[in-house]
């Protein structure tokens, strides 16, 4: 009897891993650690726990599948509270993209609400700013490549390249963790993007945190070399959750199972 139980549990577990986990194939284990982000808590070390991250950004094809399963997120049905008029603007209708778009390109023109819900429906979540930046400071060889001159140059040359959102995912080399396309394709939503306070308003009505005041933001930033990161933080600080932007996509992460 007991044996049977174990076998059944085993099968159930396997099924779950196959159906919901997909951690082995499409997600990569990121070993946690501490690092100093561009804006931390008063520029001290930020601790990141172990987690799994999608190897690739979510593609148009994957998002098509999602809206077929969850019609409330189709472009004609989505609530305006959750996405402005630009939502999936490059789609012909509720389930088909314009012929100019490729299924294997990253999904863009999605709002934060849509991205969050997509991840939630995969049993995942959006990464935090700290998690995303932690993985993104790697290049092909080093977990933290921010000191290298080439690291910044590469990213900045991508920021200058036009229309990278139309490329297919997975063409950039794997970074130290095996993750692809954090740089070089599209920018990505993070769960707490609205924790970045370097906006116009931070000059007048944000209390306390002088680190984040506009003028002193640059001075307070811990890593003046990392101009690319500075641009990312500024971008995050300038958007709101309903926005759908041409070069802004997302990928999901997953917590490590509690042992």
């Amino acid at each position, binding site marked *: 009897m007991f044996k049977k139980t174990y076998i059944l549990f085993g099968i159930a577990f396997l099924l779950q891993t196959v159906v919901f986990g997909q951690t082995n194939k499409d997600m990569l284990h990121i070993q946690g650690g501490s690092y100093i982000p561009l804006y931390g808590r008063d520029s001290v070390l930020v601790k990141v726990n172990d987690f799994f991250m999608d190897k690739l950004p979510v593609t148009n094809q994957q998002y098509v599948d999602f809206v077929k399963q969850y019609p*409330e997120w189709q472009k004609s049905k989505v609530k305006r509270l959750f996405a402005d008029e630009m939502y999936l603007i490059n789609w012909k209708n509720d389930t088909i993209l314009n012929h100019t778009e490729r299924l294997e390109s990253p999904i863009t023109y999605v709002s934060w609400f849509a991205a969050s819900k997509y991840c939630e429906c995969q049993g995942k979540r959006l990464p935090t700013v700290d998690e995303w930046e932690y993985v993104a400071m790697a290049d092909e060889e080093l977990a933290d490549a921010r000191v290298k001159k080439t690291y910044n140059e590469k990213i900045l040359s991508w920021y200058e390249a036009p229309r990278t959102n139309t490329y297919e995912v997975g063409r950039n080399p794997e970074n130290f963790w095996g993750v692809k396309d954090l740089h070089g394709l599209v920018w990505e939503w993070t*769960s707490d993007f609205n924790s970045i306070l370097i906006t116009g308003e931070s000059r007048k009505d944000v*209390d306390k945190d002088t680190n*984040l005041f506009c003028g002193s933001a640059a001075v307070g930033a811990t890593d003046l070399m990392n101009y690319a990161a500075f641009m990312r933080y500024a971008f995050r600080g300038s958007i709101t959750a309903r926005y759908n932007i041409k070069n802004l996509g997302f990928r999901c992460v997953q917590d490590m199972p509690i042992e």
Partner: protein
Amino acid sequence: MKTYILVFCMLCLGVMSCKQDTKQVTGVNEVSKQSEEISDMSIYNLPSTWTNQNGKDIQLKDLKGDVLVMVMIYTTCKAACPRLVADMRNIEKQLPESTKGKVNMIFVSIDPETDTPERLKAFAKENFMDEEPWTFLRSSEQNTREFAAVLAVKYKEISPMDFSHSNIISVFNAAGELVFQQEGLGVNSDATIQNIEKAVSEM
């Protein structure tokens, strides 16, 4: 037999988390179709559950029918929040008699971990706000993030007891649609009051 049920449950757990939510969302859809009362831009589309200072669980749509004046704070805050509380109190004081009973003044905690219902209750009492029209709400970290996203309020934990955050007071009409936002501390509240009065008059 028991074993099968267990295994089945295990499998279900994997699928449920999102499906449940969609059910809620479609539920909201149905409501809006039937009564056409929840508009596209209404915060009553948010399915999140909140707890008030009396430990009572509510959904935002339970607040429907009143004009809502909302601000996000945390109770251990020493700098801006007391001034935000004062701003809210000033707004409430200046509201004409005709709006009384139709406006709900709400504080939403950005620090749900510290701001338990008990803590909110104590804070309400300290500030002589443990009565109508004042309401104090908290939810999960995720729901709080989502709500801040709706309000375009930004906040970040700086240390376990300290957050930096934008100081925005938001006015919602009876349908739950954002109609006005006052930004800044100790600013002139005339426009905010006008918008509350207008929202009440349209009820």
